[in-house]
């Protein structure tokens, strides 16, 4: 697919931009890593990285920060994909971070390990001396992300300072950093949720079955449908019911909500996304904690 083609111009352009950014990352940094969550955006990242360096292998390791609360489907899918790519997978566990006392488990019915994974991520970055971490975040997802750069500078503490970002002009990315600092790189910055789905459809990419409608036992909490799992404590009056659902984002089982859906194929998902009325992250309990929930986590070193 080329930008000069008449068809799918926007997808070709987005693809080329993402590839360009990945190659800049490889060229400008000593030791980059690709962050992987098992979600569709990180799958797309892996696919685009394969594209960017073809016929060579992806030149950086792939890191999965495992909260221990993953959907079993996610882990299976991850392992199959890595085997197929022959990629170098690093898994670091949030549970271990908590065990070591470097982070505290949240308690209560809404407990999640979303915040704790920041510690694990920063520890891993330090452990391997990564100077760039590629992530699949997009600017259309959330208002704090709308202001992200492609090359986003993080200080020694992994912090993002939104008021003091480097200006990013044309397609010239400045990845120079001092010892101990690192960058988050977001090649999908200009993609929207619909772009991602259209691209998956166009390229015929395989995605975890969680994204397609299936029957599952869920509990409704604060307007969000949460999947039945050992990590969720039912509150008084709550109960599981079986519904036809699919996930629009895949994170922790504790906070990733499902939406009711009948879209069982990618074509149907694209159709649904194109006409939907709910924001993609609307079912993410972690974002709904406050208006600036994402901004606060990003400042601390979140993706």
């Amino acid at each position, binding site marked *: 697919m080329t930008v000069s083609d008449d068809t799918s111009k*926007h997808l070709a352009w987005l693809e080329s931009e993402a590839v360009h950014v990945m190659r800049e990352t490889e060229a400008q940094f000593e030791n980059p890593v690709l962050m992987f969550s098992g979600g569709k955006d990180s799958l797309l990242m892996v696919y685009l990285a394969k594209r960017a360096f073809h016929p060579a292998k992806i030149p950086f390791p792939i890191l999965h920060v495992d909260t221990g609360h993953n959907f079993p489907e996610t882990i299976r899918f991850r392992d199959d994909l890595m085997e197929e790519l022959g990629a170098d997978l690093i898994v670091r566990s949030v549970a271990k971070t908590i065990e070591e006392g470097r982070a505290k488990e949240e308690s209560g019915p809404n407990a999640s390990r979303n915040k704790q994974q920041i510690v694990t991520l920063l520890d891993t970055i330090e452990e391997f001396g990564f100077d760039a971490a590629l992530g699949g975040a997009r600017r259309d997802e959330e208002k704090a992300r709308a202001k992200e750069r492609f090359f986003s500078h993080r200080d020694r503490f992994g912090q993002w300072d939104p*008021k003091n970002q480097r200006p990013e002009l044309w397609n010239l990315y400045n990845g120079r950093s001092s010892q101990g600092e690192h960058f988050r790189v977001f090649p999908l910055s200009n993609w929207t949720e619909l772009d991602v789905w259209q691209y998956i459809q166009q390229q015929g990419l395989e995605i975890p079955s969680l994204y397609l409608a299936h029957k599952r036992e869920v509990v409704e909490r604060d307007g969000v449908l949460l999947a039945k799992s050992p990590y969720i404590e039912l509150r008084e009056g709550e109960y599981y019911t079986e519904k036809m659902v699919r996930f629009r984002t895949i994170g922790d089982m504790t906070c990733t909500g499902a939406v009711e859906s009948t879209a069982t194929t990618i074509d149907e998902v694209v159709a649904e996304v194109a006409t939907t009325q709910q924001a993609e992250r609307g079912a993410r309990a972690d974002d709904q904690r406050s208006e600036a929930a994402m901004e606060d986590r990003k400042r601390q070193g979140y993706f």
Partner: protein
Amino acid sequence: MHSDPETHVPARRTSPRRNSQLATLNSQPIIRTAPHMDVLRFTTAGSVDDGKSTLIGRLMYDTQEIFEEKMEEIKRHTQRDDDDLELALLTDGLRAEREQGITIDVAYRYFATPKRKFIIADTPGHEQYTRNMVTGASTAELAVELIDARNGVLQQTKRHGFIASLLQIPHMIVAVNKMDLVGYSEARFREIVADFEDFAEELDVQDITFIPISALKGDNVVNASENMDWYDGATLLHELETANPRADRNQIDFRFPVQTVIRPHQDFRGFAGEVASGKIRPGEEVVVLPSERATHVESIVTLEGEQEEAGPGDSIVVTLDDELDVSRGSMITRSRNQPERTRQIDADLCWMNEEAMRRDRPYVLQHTTRRTQAYVSTVIYRINVNTMHREEASAFELNEIGRVELETADPLFIDPYKVNRQTGSFILIDPDTNQTVAGGMIRGVAEDVSPFGQDTAGRAADEDMVSPNVVWEGLNIERESREAQNEHRAAILWLTGLSGSGKSTVARAVEERLFERGCQTMMLDGDNVRHGLSGDLGFSPRDRKENIRRVGEVARLFFEQGNLTLCSFVSPYQEDRDRVRSLVPDGRFLEVAVDCDLEVCKERDPKGLYEKAEKGEIANFTGVSAPYEAPADPEITVHTDSDDVDTCADQIIDTLEAKGLIPEQ
């Protein structure tokens, strides 16, 4: 039409437009975007409170890009009693921004219609404006300039226009907003259009469209207005959907900056990069810079397999027929169409860092995939972004823009920014803080241009006043030959002093004496040049400077013709007089201080000007409301308040004799 928040929730599934699509596409995927859709990137600019956020909100609302929960939030936040939605809330961002009700940084926003995907670079209208606007404009193909119909064209409007022009955004839409607040008046709209067109003559923007809108009420944004029958043009969205974004992308000059080398095994060596401009096919001859070695393209490799052709914006891998030295920073191009190769560049620069520019330290210059060290060797001028006038400067501070020359450690392969955005742009990085401190747009290879106001003898007074492609022609008959024939030397006598000091009277007396001696003379004075040569100028410091610059150039031509050229001008600034001095060889510029007490000048007041100035009828009047810098070291000083005209004239003639410019008698 969306006047009532209660009844106009943008319910995608129930809206009539959406419904009709659903009905026809029942069993097929319904996509908001057709497969052949393209992308338009545009920037929105406007002053504070002119409704920029509301406009973006309106575009997203009327194209139904707003999600339910966001809509509920807006309804919650709409506190005013009237029926208009707080659409501006759609574009809020960081916590500090919400708290202060301002925008801090460029935010990127996305929406799509069935025809096109749009990316908006939403740039704040106040703090850090220049930096953010330049950042947003660098990737934009169209600029939407918002004007509040009540306020018309403001200083800020002009500043935005200038930046859009400097960054070479090819299309501009001027949206005259808040038309509802001026009674949808056609006359008011026409007036603003005329004002903007007047100003836009100075800009380098090819295509400007004017649209009267009300973002708040929805007139002419997505839906045509029912309140402005007199306007038969397109809506804003229609213009956005039909603007031709890629038309300006350079299809001709093949440039391929190499990002990285792909080497999976011994038998494959490919060069990865994005085609900056032009097209390439396998088998075509290419040249690799900097080695300038020629070879042929063997193949264009992508994940899909080998490609027949690649064009601007395509990320590809290229293999070559021969094993050449190619690495990151190399550029692949064609032998008969190459960029300029230089270590000296002439560029417009926008400074983006709190720490001011320094000319005594190197910066890291990043151009395409190449990095090298660079010094700012000369600051030619700074642009006052409010007036668009050029100013003398030795360095730039945050948000300042101007023209500089840079010297780089390694050669760069450049094209002018106007011809090629990709190979004509660069950034400067502070090597200590690693901050991106400046963005630059290349004009071309530097030609050792003098800074504004600091010219040296023999050189054109101000390089930017030299028309392109014009070379100073050697004179047919040398001045020295004329001087020999005239039997006297040429010189410029520059009489400076307050109005009413008697400059012209003394100059006339001197000229008459010289004429009697058979000398070639010419006289220029303030009143005659301001009728023609400088008839377009006023009396601001800037215009005075320009007036003196023109007079200086004219005097220089008369000088080269062998004349004793008498110039009598108030010329209050030493800098301007020194500039004229620098145009001719040493000893040929005689500064004559015509000294006279201000009170005596006022008493004389031959043209009644002091009286008017003191009544405030004339602004910037030297000695009354504008300063006069007396000559620091004049060749001659005459005192017209104590001596008579003949004495003063004789004193000047004596000096000319003493300096050997005219023969003694």
